[in-house]
């Protein structure tokens, strides 16, 4: 049984320079709304910690370590997701937390004990042991402000370790204790774990993690980016820190030492390719033509690394065209590509739809093989050559993918697709250590669109990507449709690529589309399973996401009609409506009713009504589209869904965006569809 379980936990803070005031609430018209900015301290953390483990938590400052501990301690609640903790929790989150400087050591001990939930009697019984461990008998009656940091640590640690807690949470502090005390702390903590209790330690001291922990997680920007044995994760953190400093000193972020040197001119690449892979001109001419597509939306930060790696591929440049399809970026992507990568073709898509952008590119491509590379991914030099070889060996294959690492590794991102329960799909190997299982070539049900090679013939045969998906799961759908026509997909471990997790798409956006497209996939291929898929939906159970229900209803309805006709859709729809009613159960009373809760209930009811109105006999119509309130919404042009990004009026980012837009008159968005620059 897990002692602590976190499921999809995210935590949002509101940042504002102004203090909240009653006056503003009462006179909103006079003073205007308060300007707040959201900050996600944690994003989508899922963790299960068993008793008898000791978990280390690492990460740069501001990566969410302390927030994670606060959530585990029950000091604050997650914005979404659920935290469950079994047993008594003791915390040591700061020096002097729960101490008062003017009270004596003795008084503070009793106060701190009471804060930790110890009864008077229990406290008296343990008092001597605590004082003995802290070695502070001589100072017990001196006020706390005379204590040094080390002495405060002694007091705090002594009491925390003596609380008989099942879970102990410690945040960055052992470093101020002297050597002898640190050693005694270590011994105590090791014993604590051996007694089958759970220990969670946040620290920047790598040695501590290696000595004490059997599992370490690494946080960065609120996301869990590595989880594994201490040595592996510590190495990962070291690398992360080095790269951070390198990027500060003005160097480009690069992945492997081989790519660290400046970009050689094209001739040099050709020559180098000739040296590395001796081959005759005839052999080179027989290599198939490849078109690689990189879809970009405001991804200038990642795009240069991606293009650098694509241009450095050990594949003859004259056999491989590189195309960026832009979804209407408002950042400097276009200027950057024109200045630094003049050989790269630049296509403009009419709306912001990842699938449509890829289809647009494929229609104009001159290659027989199509490589899809995400703008936040980058490739090892032999990636393409290896995959082309694999695809050439087996005419049955529609597409192949290689070993894609998460960020710079060592954890995996994808080695092809894998079906999960309840119609969920995921990338095979995601978050896992690269093990022997992934060193064998294999057949997979589909390949991730983040870095994979397709045969153009198969793409044309199935009609390309389904634009209704917009983004996410479109590759799963592609896999299913190709397999229906007898094609297969392969995994080639020798082809290595890297992918930044959630590099360009935000967490919330991803969640919206993953859930939506999972349902669409069911509606498309097995509509009778749709009610069941709705009931087993993980996202809809979170209150904050119920607003999506109305939008999903519209999307599902369109998909059902398109794929199965009016009649087919009407066969399925009553079941869908029933499932909707069940999933979107009205709120339950807990405690006293409040205006806020009643309003929330009414709002939810309204969403439900909008989604299921006219359910009897006819198809319901979902009106309007869902705005997340966070700056994007899904809009339809005819039957084509696409993303629209909006910034809140009057915010700093909106103003600066308006400035850059006006500076760049004749912006790339004004270009006709498919225009080549």
């Amino acid at each position, binding site marked *: 049984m897990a002692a602590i379980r976190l499921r999809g936990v995210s935590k949002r803070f509101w940042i504002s320079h102004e203090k*909240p005031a*009653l006056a503003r609430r009462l006179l909103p018209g006079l003073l205007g709304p308060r300007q707040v900015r959201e900050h996600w301290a944690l994003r989508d953390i899922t963790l299960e910690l068993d008793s008898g483990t000791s978990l280390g938590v690492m990460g740069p400052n501001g990566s969410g370590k302390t927030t994670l501990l606060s959530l585990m*301690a029950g*000091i*604050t609640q997650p914005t979404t997701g659920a935290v469950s903790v079994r047993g008594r929790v003791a915390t040591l*989150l700061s020096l*002097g937390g729960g101490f008062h400087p003017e009270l004596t050591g003795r008084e503070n001990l009793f106060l701190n004990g009471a*804060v930790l939930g110890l009864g008077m009697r229990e406290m008296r019984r343990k008092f001597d042991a605590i004082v003995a461990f802290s070695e502070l008998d001589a100072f017990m009656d001196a006020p706390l402000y005379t204590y040094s940091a080390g002495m405060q640590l002694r007091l705090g640690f002594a009491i925390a370790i003596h609380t008989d807690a099942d879970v102990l949470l410690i945040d960055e502090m052992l470093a101020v204790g002297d050597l002898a005390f640190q050693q005694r702390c270590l011994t105590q903590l090791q014993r604590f774990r051996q007694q089958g209790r759970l220990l969670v330690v946040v620290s920047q001291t790598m040695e501590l993690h290696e000595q004490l922990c059997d599992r370490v997680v690494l946080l960065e920007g609120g996301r869990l980016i590595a989880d594994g044995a201490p040595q592996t994760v510590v190495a990962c953190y070291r690398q992360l820190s080095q790269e951070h400093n390198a990027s500060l000193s003005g160097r480009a972020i690069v992945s492997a030492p081989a790519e660290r040197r400046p970009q050689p001119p094209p001739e040099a690449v050709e020559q180098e390719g000739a040296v590395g892979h001796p081959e005759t001109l005839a052999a080179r001419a027989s290599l198939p033509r490849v078109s690689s597509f990189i879809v970009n939306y405001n991804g200038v930060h990642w795009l240069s690394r991606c293009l650098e790696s694509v241009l450095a591929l050990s594949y003859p440049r004259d056999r491989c065209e590189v195309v960026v399809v832009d979804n209407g970026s408002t950042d400097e992507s276009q200027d950057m590509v024109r200045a630094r990568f003049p050989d790269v073709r630049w296509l403009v898509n009419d709306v912001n739809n990842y699938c449509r952008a890829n289809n647009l590119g494929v229609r104009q491509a001159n290659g027989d093989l199509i490589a899809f590379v995400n703008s936040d991914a980058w490739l090892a030099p032999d990636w393409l050559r290896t995959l082309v070889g694999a695809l050439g060996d087996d005419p049955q294959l529609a597409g192949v993918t290689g070993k894609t690492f998460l960020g710079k590794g060592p954890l995996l991102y994808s080695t092809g697709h894998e079906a999960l329960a309840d119609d969920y799909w995921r990338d095979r190997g995601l978050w896992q250590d690269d093990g022997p299982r992934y060193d064998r070539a294999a057949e997979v049900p589909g390949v991730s669109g983040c870095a994979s090679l397709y045969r153009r013939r198969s793409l044309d045969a199935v009609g390309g990507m389904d634009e209704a998906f917009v983004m996410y799961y479109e590759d799963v759908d592609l896999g299913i449709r190709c397999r229906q026509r007898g094609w297969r997909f392969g995994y080639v471990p020798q082809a290595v690529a890297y992918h930044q997790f959630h590099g360009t798409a935000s967490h919330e956006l991803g969640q919206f589309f993953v859930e939506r497209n999972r349902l669409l996939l069911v509606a498309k291929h097995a509509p009778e399973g749709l009610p069941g898929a709705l009931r087993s939906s993980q996202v809809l159970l979170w209150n904050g996401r119920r607003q999506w229900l109305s939008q999903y209803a519209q999307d599902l309805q369109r998909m059902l009609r398109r794929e199965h006709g009016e009649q087919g859709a009407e066969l399925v729809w009553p079941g869908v409506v029933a499932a909707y009613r069940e999933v979107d159960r009205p709120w339950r009373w807990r*405690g006293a009713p409040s205006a806020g809760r009643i309003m929330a209930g009414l709002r939810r009811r309204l969403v439900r009504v909008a989604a299921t109105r006219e359910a009897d006999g006819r198809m319901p119509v979902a009106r309007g589209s869902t705005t997340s309130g966070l700056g994007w919404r899904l809009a339809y042009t005819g039957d084509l869904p696409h993303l629209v990004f909006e910034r809140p009026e009057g915010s700093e980012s909106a103003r600066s965006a308006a400035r850059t837009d006006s500076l760049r008159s004749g912006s790339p968005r004004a270009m006709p569809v498919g225009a080549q620059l």
Partner: protein
Amino acid sequence: MLRYLAELYRYRGLLFRLAGKDVRVRYKSALLGWLWSLIVPLSISAIFFVIFTYVAPVPKTGVPFFLFLLAAVFPWMFFANSVSHATMCVLESGALIKKHRFPRAVIPLAVVMSQVTNFCAGLVIVIGVVLVHGMPLTLWMGLLPVAVGLELLLTAGVALCVSLLQVHYRDVKYVVELSLLLGFYLTPIFYPVALVGGSPPWVQAAYLANPMVHIVELFRLSLLGAAAGPAVLPPLATAAAAAVTATGFFAAGISLFTRHEGTLADWVLG
């Protein structure tokens, strides 16, 4: 809500520790210790005695005016001090709230608790003065525990509400200051409540909506007996009104805390 109260009871040790800490920290450096806190209400009573006897006389009742003042000033001072101290307490307890998990309502309740010692000492003084004056202690004295209990409940309730609101609206403290200032005049402290009886009905209704009116009346009745003067409401109705408002405030305070407990740590300072 009951579960929350049970949780609070489990942390009663912390409540007393925190209250004790408040008392100790407050008087540790002051020379006269907590005697100071008794001098304030006593001197207020003295100055009012002089002003409202000689300068601007108010109608007197059947009891010595100084006693009449004392019996109301101590309950009022307890209420006002507790509430004004409690306003900022949750907001400023970041060091505790951000680092430990415990029922947050303990913090304002401890502030109220730390004022109780002064209050009890004040009541002893009033009773002492009553006896010194040679006035008989009446059967109404039996109401005293009821009065004390209701005042504690009301004070705790108001303290809970304002301390939590202050976290989310930083200008609540000005509202509290103003309300306490106005409340002092809108409570029958230096004048008999019977004076209000002559005003139009809506003024009377508004006046009686102030819960401290009933609490102060209960104290006068129990300490000084019926001689304290005619009341607007009969004793039972006064007690009932006090009980209803006090329970209401307390329930509102606890339910506010139940609801906001989980995210309080995100908003407090420190």
